[in-house]
């Protein structure tokens, strides 16, 4: 009897964890940090969090598709850095103003194409491919920046990120939420979105029903690149410069946000729409712990523990026989 009851509890916790638990965690974090720090629940800080979280959210969206299909993109942060550097260079050379965003998205898309093509045609695990390009892209960006922060001077470009079309909400947050809405729609209402689940859930099955796997795998990496490009351009617009440390924290934070949001690294489970909550949790933790004066090292410890805890609670591990 007792066993049955505890199993019932475990099941209901898991059912709740699907959606409400992460939402509860977000609300809980806001309440906790509001009490723990006077500076937390202020307009200034909220606007700040929105700005920070927006870059992370933009960078996560494409990568969520990649993770959903059971692959991984480690090069997101490096693409943000390289595209950010390229964007500033373009701004300073051609005076394209806000149009630089399009250059950034195209550049990102091409970097994603490189990842996807090597992965799909070369049949090399995505972990290895993007580990390699992570280094290649980062090195190229540093080469371009000569190791220094490169400033730009364009009001229209700056306005893209820190302007407030709606009072108190920086434009970059509108971009991020808009992109999230579009990505969620793509995930839930298109053939591409469906195939991401299918490839992640059972690639060998997908190959017996004629799904053009190579093509869709490349698409996913191109979208990851495109979103990273957008994130890179807007991050640079927000910061006023592209520096060598741009995107440095994204490697861990994107994967953490995706996993905490509920998309399984083994593929086929979760979805891009869920990444919003993951991003909120990571961004709130970063900001709140900073304000509380928790030192950098302890922050890392806490963040890591949260990622593991989220997976521990959220996923039904009884179904997985082999965990790698």
């Amino acid at each position, binding site marked *: 009897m007792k066993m049955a009851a505890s199993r019932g509890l475990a099941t209901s916790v898991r059912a709740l964890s699907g959606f409400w638990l992460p939402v509860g965690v977000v609300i809980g974090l806001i309440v906790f940090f509001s009490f723990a720090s006077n500076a937390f629940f202020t307009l200034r800080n909220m606007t700040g969090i929105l700005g920070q979280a927006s870059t992370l959210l933009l960078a996560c969206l494409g990568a969520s598709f990649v993770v959903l299909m059971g692959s991984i993109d480690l090069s997101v942060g490096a693409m943000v850095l390289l595209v950010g550097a390229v964007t500033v260079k373009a701004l300073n050379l051609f005076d394209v103003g806000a149009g630089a965003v399009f250059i950034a998205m195209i550049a990102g898309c091409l970097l994603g194409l490189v990842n996807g093509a090597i992965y799909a045609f070369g049949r090399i695990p995505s972990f290895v491919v993007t580990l390699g390009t992570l280094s290649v892209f980062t090195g190229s960006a540093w080469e371009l920046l000569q190791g220094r922060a490169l400033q730009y001077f364009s009001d229209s470009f700056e306005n893209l990120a820190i302007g407030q079309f709606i009072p108190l909400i920086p434009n970059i947050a509108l971009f991020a939420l808009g992109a999230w809405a579009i990505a969620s729609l793509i995930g839930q209402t298109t053939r591409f979105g469906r195939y991401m689940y299918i490839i992640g859930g*059972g690639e060998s099955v997908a190959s017996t029903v*004629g799904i053009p796997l190579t093509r869709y795998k490349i698409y996913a990496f191109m979208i990851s690149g495109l979103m990273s490009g957008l994130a890179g351009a807007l991050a640079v617009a927000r910061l006023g410069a592209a520096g060598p440390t741009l995107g440095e924290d994204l490697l861990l934070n994107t994967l953490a946000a995706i996993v905490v949001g509920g998309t399984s690294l083994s593929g086929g489970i979760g979805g891009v729409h869920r990444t919003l909550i993951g991003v909120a949790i990571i961004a709130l933790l970063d900001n709140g712990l900073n304000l509380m004066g928790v030192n950098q090292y302890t922050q890392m410890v806490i963040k890591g523990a949260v990622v593991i805890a989220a997976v521990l609670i959220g996923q039904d591990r009884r179904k997985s026989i082999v965990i790698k």
Partner: protein
Amino acid sequence: MVEHVVDGIVALRASGLTKRFGETQALGAVDFSLDFGKITGLVGENGAGKSTLLNILTGITSPDQGTIEISGREVVLKDYADAQMLGLARVFQEQALILNIPVYANLLLGSEARFASLGQFIRRSAMIELAQQMMDTAGVSIDVRRHTGDLSFSERQLVEIVRACMGPVMLFGVGTPIVLLDEPTASLEKRDEQTFFDLITRLREQAGSVLFVSHRLGEILSACDEIVVLKDGRRVGAVDPAEASERQLHRLMVGRERDRDYYHEGEQVDVKDKDVVFAARGLARRGAYDNVNLEVRKGEILGIGGLLESGKSALGRGLAGISPPDAGEIRLMQDGWERPDIAHLIAKGVGYVPAERLVEGMIASLPIAWNISLASGQDVFSTPAGFWRHRREAEVSAELIQRLHIRATSPYQSCDHLSGGNQQKVVLARWLARDLCLLILDNPTRGVDAGAKEEIYRLIRALAADGLAVILITDELLELIGLSNNIAIMRHGRIEAMVPAPVDDKPSEQTLVSLMLSVNAGQLLGDVA
């Protein structure tokens, strides 16, 4: 071995085993025992509770209620390792060998410590010697130094059987092993089957207890000393094989008798004058099949039979364009000759149902509806702009679930809790969601219970009557004979013979087997007589 039989003590006794999974009662108060020196058969449809019972007996699942005694002592099994220490060994339905290591390493998996000297250095020669001894004692002629991945599927199955049968005595020092065999013969070739039956007979002579689960009732009847029948999680009877027939067993299992129209032979139509839907010429794939030519007409069921390694499954994959052939062409209807290309074939209305349902057939973690729409994402279930047609998916799935009697509460239920038969119907439904002209089936009733089997036969017949061309690749002889209009027999990758199978003149099993083995039919009949 009389000395083991001490007043009513049996090798294994389970009393009142009960197990629930959510809404379903998997086992309801099942009593069960295995005697020393006896082979006990366990039969029942899929979903009757056989696997659950075996899982409980080997400590993999814990029962909600009930007790297990081994040699008269009550035990609580925490996991499979626990069960192994008590002399239980099991051959699982899915093979559990590691393919990239030698056979001896698989046989002795988990017992490496006894070959270790100085802590970590493993004495390879001693391992090989003991492993070979296990093989020889079991009467199996496989060199244990061979790479496991190089063995045929059937040989690998034998390795697993040897591990289960010889392990308890030769590795754990158990006097009287209890061996649980879950469908051990399903993937054995004919010549390996005899080796297997000799082995379990020897085990019986040494007072071992064997539990033998099989869908092949004939085997069960000839090999077992006692047969237990499960139905819907309950024990519905124990049968003395000396007095029972297949028909009686079947009736106990499904609660109804198999009638003469099992394969709906009366509905078979003459297809001689019909149009050719699909033709292949000169198909070849290295190491699999060679120079295959065939034709299928509208409404025809073309059976393809042969031994396990005859190349028939590889041919099916080639025809469907999944692993395209190295040479040769196919032609669909009035189109020209072309190389098989999967996307093109599917778009033109060719469907393929693979033999390995859970590996290639379906994504069990995803909803039924998603599995049904899987092959039609490029046309039926999405708009030209690439948006998914959710409503059509829901409607078509609900309709097919009803039409094929798939037992499910909702089209959005995931497939992993469906029985094998219902899962197979989902895979078939996937192709019925499209306009088809040819359906290629590889062992469509493997691991499917008798009830679902009947429904699948009826469906195949009805589809053919509607003009669908069907290529039926199967290991089941009766199915091959009963359903097919014509039967291609493959041997060593070539079509050895094309045997017509009209309603009033079906070939005999002996004829087909002799063609598969390429011995003279009369000679074989003589052997049998």
